[in-house]
């Protein structure tokens, strides 16, 4: 959020700003819970999909689509919109939930995820889904596409920004590093990558399968600004977005997250990477999320 001059701290204006901040944060928490509920609902209805990595980015998605990004659901092709590339395309349920919540398409469509004849593909398809800026699914391509979009902004002297959401396991793909190198070479200060650092990939913990650390150091060595935050702390996410606005390099936000965040029995487990909840688990998950919604309203 906005940085406050020290002299303002005891003033009535500061009090009003703080109240407003609190309201904004509460609303974004509500949006994130709605995204989580729809992730569970759509993956349950589909009978397949990736709940774990969708839940871990729900808070980030809420902050992006309902606070940070400049976009217009009534005009998905708006040339000056900020772009979002979900490079970890298997988290499509979270993207679709955010898009539906923003009004890009009817919420009822979420129940048709992965179903034949319906447009919500298992992984994002820009030709079929309004609001999807890039088709993804095979890991390692989204950052390169984001570089292309950011270059186009520079060419056209437009001030839109490009957000790319990367999985942590995904950065084992060599093409991510080719793109990271190109981004700093071409001084793409309008490119922001967000690393969903949930520390788990399909075969196990990332550091056991193929080590990624020291992540910050590696990206800094590739010419990026790096910030590390709690990817579930709405206030910290908003503050970070504000802080990085004037970075002169491409920025990586390492968002430390918990896979399956928000549903107790999915948190920190591998088993819900690519598996839907059973009926009983679905009921439990929804009731946990509804309880969290209730607590938010108290």
């Amino acid at each position: 959020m906005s940085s406050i001059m020290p002299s303002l701290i005891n003033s009535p204006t500061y009090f009003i700003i703080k109240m407003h901040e609190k309201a904004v944060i509460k609303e974004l928490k509500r949006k994130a819970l709605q995204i989580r509920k729809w992730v569970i609902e759509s993956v349950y209805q589909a009978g397949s999909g990736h709940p774990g990595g969708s839940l871990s980015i729900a808070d980030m998605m809420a902050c992006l689509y309902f606070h940070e990004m400049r976009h217009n659901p009534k005009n998905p092709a708006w040339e000056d919109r900020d772009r979002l590339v979900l490079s970890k395309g298997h988290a499509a349920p979270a993207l679709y939930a955010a898009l539906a919540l923003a009004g890009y398409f009817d919420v009822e469509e979420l129940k048709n995820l992965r179903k034949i004849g319906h447009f919500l593909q298992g992984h994002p398809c820009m030709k079929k889904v309004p609001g999807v800026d890039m088709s993804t699914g095979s890991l390692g391509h989204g950052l390169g596409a984001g570089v292309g979009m950011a270059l186009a902004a520079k060419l056209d002297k437009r001030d839109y920004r490009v957000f790319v959401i990367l999985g942590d396991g995904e950065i084992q793909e060599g093409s991510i590093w080719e793109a990271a190198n190109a981004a700093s070479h071409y001084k793409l200060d309008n490119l922001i990558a967000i690393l969903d650092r949930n520390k788990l990939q399909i075969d196990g913990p990332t550091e056991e399968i193929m080590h990624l650390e020291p992540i910050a150091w590696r990206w800094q060595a590739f010419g990026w600004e790096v910030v590390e935050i709690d990817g579930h702390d709405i206030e910290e996410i908003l503050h970070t977005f504000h802080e990085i606005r004037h970075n002169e390099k491409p920025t990586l936000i390492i968002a430390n997250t918990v896979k399956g965040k928000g549903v107790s029995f999915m948190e920190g487990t591998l088993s819900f990477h690519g598996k839907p909840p059973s009926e009983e688990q679905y009921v439990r998950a929804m009731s946990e999320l509804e309880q969290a919604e209730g607590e938010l309203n108290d």
Partner: protein
Amino acid sequence: MIEARITEKRRNLRDAYSSALISLGEKNENVVVLDADLALSTKTKRFGTVFPERFFDMGIAEATMMDVAAGLATCGKIVFASTFAVFATGRSYDSIRQSIAYPELNVKIVATHSGISVGGDGASHQMLEDMALMRALPNMRVIAPADATEMEDVVFKIAEADGPFYVRIGREDAPIIFESHGHFEIGKGYEIRKGKDVAIIATGTMTAEALRAYDILEKRGIEAMLIHMPSIKPIDEKLIRKAAKETGAIITCEEHTIIGGLGDAVAMAMHDEPVPLYRIGVNDVFGESGGARELMEKYGLTAENIAEKAEKMVNRKK
């Protein structure tokens, strides 16, 4: 019938490519060119010299070049991405599949140094399966022009047509076959010699060989129909069916493996009314180092071999 003959003049298709690119760049500021550290060889550097702000060298990172091209295309750019055929297709296949073909983005992959005539660099650099790879991708159109005149027309035409293209050209200078511009249309083949005994369908560098084969056959009293097929996908099915019907025997000629390229496309086009089909191409082997001409001869990519096989087919018909 369009005028086609082997003239004394030779011109490199890469030079034609860069001239056409510059001319496109002058007309349309949305034309952007990418290369992967081979800009001097593919000749895209000439575009980069005239329009430095619209030229991006991605370094030796071909796959990412394709992803970047896709990203630029989503923002309204007409993107030409060039490198050698072996890197443009093999190295970059997944990027092309996921980021260009699937979302049907406006990226024109123009690959140079295709085929065995790359010469001395050897099998690692002699791309012989690029048409097979690109043909197999939905939304991808595949073009192999025969000479510099046609190459210029191809560049202008694909720039006008929205969506992805793969254009393959060779390294060597090639004889000018078409002295005037303007015939090229996406999806069209050209009957450049009339005949009823056998139909020779050739693409890319092999059209010049096929023209020479026609002359050899003519001396032997064989009237070959000669078709130049620059557009491999979509392919001119109507013309292929006509050739099958009128001649009853077809030979395809391509500087490419016999698997998955022109030969397969022709076979598919006449699936319900097939006639005997012989494929001239590289016979499911890797190439080797050598002179361009020596290699074309060793692997049977010559007018003499086309004529020999054509004569056999005609005799078998009797």
